[in-house]
């Protein structure tokens, strides 16, 4: 397996006056084509980690490498070309004057020819189902639509790693489901590596592996099934919640995590 992203002993502190670190000794690796979900409470340092991964912040300690390239001041532009980051706040990352302008912004920075940009923009807008809105200005868009545009802007650059920082929170359930499917497809067809910082259980459930963060540290990691079982504090997907509730009522239910479909199958038995 190719290690696409390696993070070693990352330590960072926003406020030097405090004793506690924002991140301390965060280490993990992500393989090519893997979907990693990062979960944790507000303030646990997830967004800070995302900013470190693209070189917007410089760690106090530790090292980040993407495709074997170690992040330094000199390599950060090259690494940014590999990693597409979608931020939490969709409004402030909307740079263009219309939807299609915004999607093209990153392409313009590559000095890409108009014809090539046009193809990429069309593709990306289609992927997030925003083609109809291509001439709209940001003031006429909902938060969810702006988030879709932000995702399109990242996808248009064809990154090898897509880093999503709670990028789905404003989406309605239907577009969320659509987008998750689109990403799952890209993961298969393009071998896209996805790192999604999320609170959403469905987004966690589709991942291959989950990291749990707490106060700047990785406190647990494992498959979604393992994490949902272990982390009782996290709201599990509906099926798992049902399983726990049934167990609490004294029914004999399987000891393992089940997907919605498995649960349905079991219930109908």
């Amino acid at each position, binding site marked *: 397996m190719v290690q696409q992203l390696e993070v070693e002993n990352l330590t960072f502190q926003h406020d030097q006056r405090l004793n506690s670190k924002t991140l301390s000794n965060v280490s993990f690796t992500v393989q090519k084509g893997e979907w990693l979900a990062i979960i944790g409470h507000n303030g646990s340092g997830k967004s800070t980690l995302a900013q470190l991964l693209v070189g917007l912040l410089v760690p106090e300690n530790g090292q980040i490498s993407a495709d074997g390239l170690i992040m330094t001041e000199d390599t950060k*532009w090259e690494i*940014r070309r590999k990693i597409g980051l979608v931020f939490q706040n969709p409004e*402030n990352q909307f*740079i*263009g004057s219309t939807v*299609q302008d915004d999607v093209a912004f990153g*392409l313009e*920075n*590559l000095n890409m020819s108009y014809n090539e940009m046009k193809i990429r923009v069309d593709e990306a807008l289609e992927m997030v189902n925003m083609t109809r809105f291509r001439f709209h200005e940001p003031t006429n868009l909902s938060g969810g639509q702006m988030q879709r545009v932000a995702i399109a802007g990242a996808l248009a*650059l064809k990154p090898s790693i897509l880093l999503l920082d709670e990028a789905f929170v404003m989406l309605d359930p239907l577009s969320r489901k659509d987008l998750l499917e689109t990403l799952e497809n890209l993961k298969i067809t393009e071998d896209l590596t996805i790192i999604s910082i999320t609170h959403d259980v469905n987004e966690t459930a589709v991942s291959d592996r989950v990291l749990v963060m707490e106060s700047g540290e990785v406190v647990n990691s494992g498959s979604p099934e393992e994490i949902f079982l272990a982390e009782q504090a996290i709201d599990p997907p509906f099926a798992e919640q049902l399983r726990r509730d049934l167990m609490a009522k004294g029914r004999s239910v399987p000891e393992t995590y089940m997907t919605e479909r498995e649960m349905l199958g079991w219930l109908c038995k």
Partner: protein
Amino acid sequence: MNKLILGRYFPGDSWLHRLDPRSKLIAGVAFIFIIFLADSLQAFALLWVFTLFVMRLSGVGFRTYVRGVRPLIWLILFATLMQMLFRTGGATFVDWGPITISEYGIINGFYVFCRFVLIIFFSTVVTLTTKPIDLTDGIGSLLRPLRKLKVPVDELALMLSISLRFIPNLMDETQRIMDAQRARGTQFGEGSLIQQMKTLVPIFLPLFASSLNRAEDMANAMEVRGYQSGTKRSTFRQLSWKRIDTASLFIMVVLAGVLLVVRTI
């Protein structure tokens, strides 16, 4: 805020709306020079006919244009009066020492008035029929030769376009903060001037703070998508110079030519 017409865009699909922003900008600037060629009543009559015709083409009502003149009306009247009162020549109607009302004074006052109003009307036509973002692109494109003099034209154009994009957000935010302060008992637009100024401080401080945060977020978002100032960028918004643009500039040349011919030297 809503009274400001100059600088506003009125969506539409008139012939003027479809012109390239560059031809409209060039025509707008050229018009200012052309207007100074006019020095007779016939010449001004021609300019009025031309300008009113162009205004008509824009598909925007005449009253909108008048509203555009209104904020500047005192300045215009002042300049007109200066001409009327101090200019001498021709028949003199009133003579009170330095203050004279003469034939030339009245005529020149009228010319000054016409010049101001015509320039405002014409520039308003340009801004009403061109999206601000297209104007920005047009300006950026026209100023491109200045890059040779190390003027960061592209950066300035991008800055301008981003500012335009965030104006509505800023307005919303101002409104929100004002509402929040009103809910705390602040009354805007009352009391002495000093008191009114004081009520503005609790608006500007939060606005300033949030704008700084926003600017940082934006800078991050731009950087992550590979924006580096000083590097060559392509543009997705394309300007296209069409035959109709050349034709419009030709009309401006003809206008200038006619005025030169009727000029009384």
